[in-house]
């Protein structure tokens, strides 16, 4: 029996799922509701200067990359197996589209973050 390479995708899926479950709703609340409506946080919390400062910091870069990339890998795997369950069996095409998309998103996010100089 050939060992499956699925653990690579499943681990990214699992990490993304855990991150999404832990901070996803909080991020939606903070960035989508609290800050725009001026609740809890100062109105300039998400100002350009603050966000730039976050992405100039290495810990900030890693956080932003993790949120973007792992969420994408999670979604890619979920959509991939969901399509399979629903009877779309163009396995290679679906894989290339889903995982390719997540990979492209990861590379673009990483490149963009690296380009932001302090």
């Amino acid at each position, binding site marked *: *029996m*050939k060992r*499956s390479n699925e*653990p*690579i995708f*499943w*681990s990214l899926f*699992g990490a993304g799922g855990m991150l999404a479950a832990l901070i996803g709703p909080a991020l939606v609340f903070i960035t989508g509701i609290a800050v725009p409506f001026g609740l809890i946080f100062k109105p300039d919390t998400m100002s350009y200067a603050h966000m730039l400062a976050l992405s100039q910091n290495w810990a900030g870069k890693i956080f932003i990359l993790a949120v973007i990339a792992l969420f994408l890998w999670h979604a890619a795997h979920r959509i991939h197996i969901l399509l*399979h369950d629903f009877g779309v*069996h163009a396995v290679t095409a679906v894989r290339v589209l889903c995982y390719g998309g997540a990979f492209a998103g990861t590379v673009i996010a990483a490149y963009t973050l690296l380009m932001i100089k302090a």
Partner: protein
Amino acid sequence: MADTEKIIEIEVLRYRPEQDKEPVWQTYKVPFTDDMSVLQGVQYIKDYLDETVSFRWSCRMAICGSCGMMIDDKPKLSCKTFLRDYYPGKLRVEALKHLPIERDLIVDATDFMKKLESIKPYIIPKEERTLAQGEYLQTPQQRDMYEQFSSCINCMLCYAACPQYGLNPKFTGPGILALMHRYNADSRDGGQAERNELGYADEGYWGCTAVGYCSEVCPKGVDPANAINQNKMNSAINYFTRFITPGGADK
């Protein structure tokens, strides 16, 4: 008694290989009482209406795992399902999905049996002990690690429920993977390495997409989806650590 008797329509998917090109529906009107199971309904058909209807059954009490069938498109043990729950409507019974029909409600379980054998469904002792050394001891906590998974009665309802097995019969499937976990998780067992070669393959744990319907239809409260998910974690850890663990790399 006769005047209180109710009548329910049972549609049976017939397939007699010597005369039917493909399965056909046949309807029977069955008198029943509230304590009658679907199995008893089908037995009534065979005894009084049509002796050619074929189906498997044995214990009538949800322990032998023989009488599984699709009842209104859901995999169920017919001995554990009651006619009264379908009345005044009718009900449809047919052979378990995803398995080849041998005749009427009987499926060909060859694939299942072959897979069952392939996982070595028995304890492979971690250490050989002589009689004088006494029995293999196990704490209640160690037993709890596998106990629910040992309740499987091989009824194959989870195979009829599993969309992955339906799409690709090479997938080992829920029940047998749960049973594999039952032995792997037993503190007395040392056969994990032998069994996991299959478990770590696409045909093993990774063929599952966590639909979870298997656990829903299990008549014995086994949770194959959980067994598989636990092992995906083990398999993933093994995948990444195999090169730094002694003896962990592929042969």
